[in-house]
């Protein structure tokens, strides 16, 4: 039920926001090193393993990070050794937040990124990226849910996003 209350001369409780923008990085199609940044959410390893096996890059850098909190400086440093980083998995509120914010940290270090978030959290992830000045951050939607599903189901869902990820990575065959 929506109740309409009208009272004159009340002040607005909603805050203003800034309008800063950050520069995002383009993928060099000839890149060599791919970082798979795993936040250890259930199924994140399956998704990243599948991508690692099917993106045709021999040099993979695997880094783990916390799910609901920022990556440590060392984890970011290691992740930034890749020419491109794929982060997963955002399939809840706090983990999506820190997939996006850690992706932005990497973008600020000059590393192009792709964040994988589930369909239920992709809209929020886009809004969060926008609020942090990164409206066009690469966020790929994988079908929710991932947690509580089998390895083969997760691989099937990852197979569906593979073409888009290849496209975002440049000249890899789709």
């Amino acid at each position, binding site marked *: 039920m929506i109740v309409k209350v009208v009272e004159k001369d009340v*002040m607005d409780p909603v805050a203003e926001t800034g309008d800063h923008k950050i520069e995002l990085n383009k993928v060099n199609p000839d890149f060599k090193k791919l970082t798979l940044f795993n936040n250890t959410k259930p199924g994140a390893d399956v998704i990243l393993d599948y991508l690692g096996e099917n993106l045709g890059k021999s040099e993979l850098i695997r880094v783990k990070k916390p799910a609901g909190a920022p990556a440590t400086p060392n984890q970011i440093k290691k992740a930034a050794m890749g020419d491109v980083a794929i982060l997963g998995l955002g399939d809840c509120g*706090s983990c999506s937040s820190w997939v996006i914010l850690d992706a932005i940290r990497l973008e600020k270090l000059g590393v192009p990124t792709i964040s994988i978030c589930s369909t239920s959290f992709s809209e929020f992830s886009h809004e*969060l990226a926008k609020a942090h000045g990164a409206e066009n951050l690469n966020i790929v939607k994988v079908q929710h849910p991932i947690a509580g599903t089998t390895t083969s189901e997760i691989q099937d869902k990852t197979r569906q996003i593979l073409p888009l990820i290849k496209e975002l990575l440049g000249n890899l065959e789709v």
Partner: protein
Amino acid sequence: MTDGLPILPPTKERVLKLLNYTDLDPHETVTVLPPKMGMATPEKIAINSVMAGCLPQFMPVVLNCVKSLSCEKFNITGINATTHPVAMCTIMNGPLSKEIGTGSGAGCLGPGNLANATIGRALRLCMINIAGAVPGVGDHATMGSPAKYSYAFGENETENPWESLSVERGHDRSVSTTTVIAVEAPQNVNDHRSQTAEDLLDTIAKTASTPGCNNSHVPGEFLLIMSPEHAKTVYNHGFSKQDVKEYLHEHCIVDVELADRGGRKIEPEWIEGGHVHITRSPEDIVLVVAGGVGRHSMICHGFGTSSESVTLPIMLKNGVIPKSVEDFKK
């Protein structure tokens, strides 16, 4: 937007009365709050506090709490967005807490006290309207929790046999502080029969050691609110506050098979034999004394490794410790 309950309309006149109790410029940015990255100014904080029903004298406390949310270790980004039903709990200590009538005795976590009810509510409204933590939009709690409406109380310093949380964290008794801690709604521990500290602490430990909490797979802080009677039993058997923490850290454990069903894979270093401790160290047990007569304590599980509580002294802009909220008046 509101929390669903009726609000007091934030007229300019009402808002100015609250702004009279801060020495900050109404439009300066105190902090920026995610997910929307809204700029928390004293004016916006005051507007939301009026809506919550705060008296003007509560303004220094609400503002101090909002300030503390920006500490990186609190992780307000994760707390606001998570599917977990974590709420922001505020614990008030010191003379200003007494001055504004904070409830620290009977029913301090329930209804009936204006300061507790409206300060906690003001913080929630700030999260909704300043941070953009709107349920289903910027706050993704699967179900949320009644604790997300309001969750604030004072420590019962007069009946605490140990040092208060504020003193434990390095502040003089004359300093007023607020502590924000990200925790679930409280879980009661009813123990009327234990005669020894160990028996009573065992009841608390067994109640705390549950696999479904965040602490089980990502060990971290939990809040223990001990009633004065429980605290007295433990204290009279020679337990210091540190002894209590060490005992509980040792005995709050969950079988690893059950614990490893949470959102994040358990780190191997947290596994000890067939179990995990729900805290990383004794310091993760945040122990306060509150409440009235009765043999009940409360356990509030935390968010896990990803958030740590923040205790911040209430100060004037020039760094002077106020003796009264009236010191803020311009």
